[in-house]
């Protein structure tokens, strides 16, 4: 009986996430079949699948997916490291907080798309400008989450550590890092998806490869199925990165359960 219940529960967990995409696919096909919009505006799922197979077969999809993914990952690492390091410094230093916080908040509220063309001029049309765009878009949420995470450590716990004569390093490793970890990982989850956006924004401005470039190319060639294939791949990258951070979160925060 218990085995059957587990089987049903497992099937449900596997099936439920697929339910919404399946419904969307059916609605999509119905909209196309009813001819609400011409097929050049909303192509059929089959046309998109055929395009997917075509660009997968000729290597175009993988080449451009790798370009975006590699830029995204490098940008993510740089942005996360930068955000955490500066965030720690700001959380620990009142003067630095007073000096940098207004600037950080201002920059954070400036859409990266507004200054992305400048980044292309400064760093060239190659991968560097996309990595910088990606790193910048990741940097601010990581920084903010680090500051908030460290500031959220209860004062009573700090007092306890001090009463136990903990060194600064012990304070860092045994109190601050574990206490800030939920917020840091929350920031990392958001950053993983933002990094993809940063990369694509850079590719939209100017690029030689990448899924953003592929979307632009497809749009100027009026190849709507290819646009949708590239969008689908972007969604897959973002979802995969999000899931990987989710796994990391489960491992690192296992002590909380």
């Amino acid at each position: 009986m218990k085995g059957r219940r587990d089987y049903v529960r497992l099937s449900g967990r596997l099936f439920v996430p697929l339910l919404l995409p399946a419904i969307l696919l059916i609605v999509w096909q119905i909209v196309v079949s009813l001819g609400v919009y011409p097929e050049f505006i909303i192509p059929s799922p089959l046309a998109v699948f055929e395009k997917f197979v075509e660009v997968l077969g000729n290597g175009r999809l993988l080449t451009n997916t790798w370009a975006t993914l590699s830029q995204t990952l490098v940008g993510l690492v740089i942005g996360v490291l930068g955000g955490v390091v500066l965030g720690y410094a700001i959380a620990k230093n009142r003067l630095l907080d007073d000096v940098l916080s207004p600037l950080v908040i201002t920059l954070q509220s400036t859409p990266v798309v507004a200054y992305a063309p400048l980044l292309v001029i400064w760093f060239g049309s190659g991968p560097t400008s996309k990595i910088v765009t990606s790193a910048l878009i990741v940097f601010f949420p990581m920084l903010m989450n680090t500051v908030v995470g460290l500031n959220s450590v209860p004062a009573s716990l700090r007092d306890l550590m001090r009463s136990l004569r903990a060194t600064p390093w012990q304070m860092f490793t045994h109190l601050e890092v574990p206490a800030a970890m939920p917020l840091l990982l929350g920031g990392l989850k958001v950053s993983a998806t933002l990094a993809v956006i940063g990369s694509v924004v850079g590719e939209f401005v100017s690029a030689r490869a990448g899924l953003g470039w592929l979307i632009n190319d497809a749009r100027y060639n009026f190849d709507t199925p290819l646009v949708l294939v590239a969008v689908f791949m972007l969604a897959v990258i973002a979802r995969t990165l999000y899931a990987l951070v989710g796994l990391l979160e489960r491992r690192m925060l296992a002590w909380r359960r």
Partner: protein
Amino acid sequence: MSHRGSRFLLILLLGLIFGPAVLAQDAPSSQTLFMTFVPNVQFSPVYIALEKGYFADAGLDITVEHGDEPLGVDLIAAGERQLGLISGEQLLTARGRGRPVVFVYEWFQRYPVAIVAPVESGIESVQDLAGRRVGIPGRFGASYSGLTALLAANGMTEQDVDLQEIGYNAPEVVCIGGVDAAVVYINNEPLQIENRAQQGDCGDVTGVNVFPVYDAADLVSNGIVTNEATIAEHPELVSAFVGAFDRALREAIDNPAEAYLLSLPYVEGLPSDDALTAALTTAADEQTAWLADNAGVDLAARAVRRAEILAGLKEQFDSDTLIQFEVLLATIDLWDADQLGLTEADSWALTQDVLLQMGFMEAPLDDLAAAYTNDFLPAANGE
């Protein structure tokens, strides 16, 4: 109910049924005109038609919207918009992908793309570009088509140059030496680079060489585009718009100072201090008088006259103040022709060949002639 009362109800009922239809006949047709880029003095014919009420006289209530070209083509193809200013090669690519869009008026008679190279680069001909770094906004759109046609006309291909995608940043990238040459719009970036060079604000660049595409290939450029359904169901709408646009375009060509002044309410940041406005107003009045005395002058005489107007203004104002007026004049050179709006079969065939060579079209259109028409030209309508 009394006899009077029932008559009143009958009139009210008829009014409710037919009133909106009668009102709709008299009300101007509301249309959103799709244009690429951003508000710019290069769209002055539209601003003239709006300011002088030519659209309104034609029964049209026109609102302008800007966006990128593929979006505009799709909106027109889907019938969400009826009219747009779109390039010929985009229209052909779109028709190749099943979009029922049609070109009805060739606004730019000469293709506006060129390659610009600093004189210091030593590039003095298209052949000199071999192996050199050439910047381009991207491998799409008019710039890419123009480059392909220009290289092909000189026995070269894209593989002969080191093509670098730089976005729409040619002046900056050329000035910092990021590329040896760049594909640009001939009526804009060369002037901007030269202006910066004159002010010592362009690195080592002191001047530029310009290689226009139109010297090598007669490609179809920007024009008025609509869709097949509008042509079939509302040809009067297309005629009305084309007629009003044509009238405004002629006036922009004839009197650029007036065109500039009428563009001011639409183009943010267009230089317009009191002195410049006064000088342009004087120039516009003088040009009106000159036109009255010189009706029917030819294309060359109009160009000479425009150059004289610019020379006069240059004696009073610096290049920064006049840069957008110069852009307008350079653009007018691309518009002016013996017969405005006329689009020719040979240009379409050549444009299609270039698109096929670039791989933007997989096969020639079954019926290339269906992509364009001269039926709506005011002359063709006997206006």
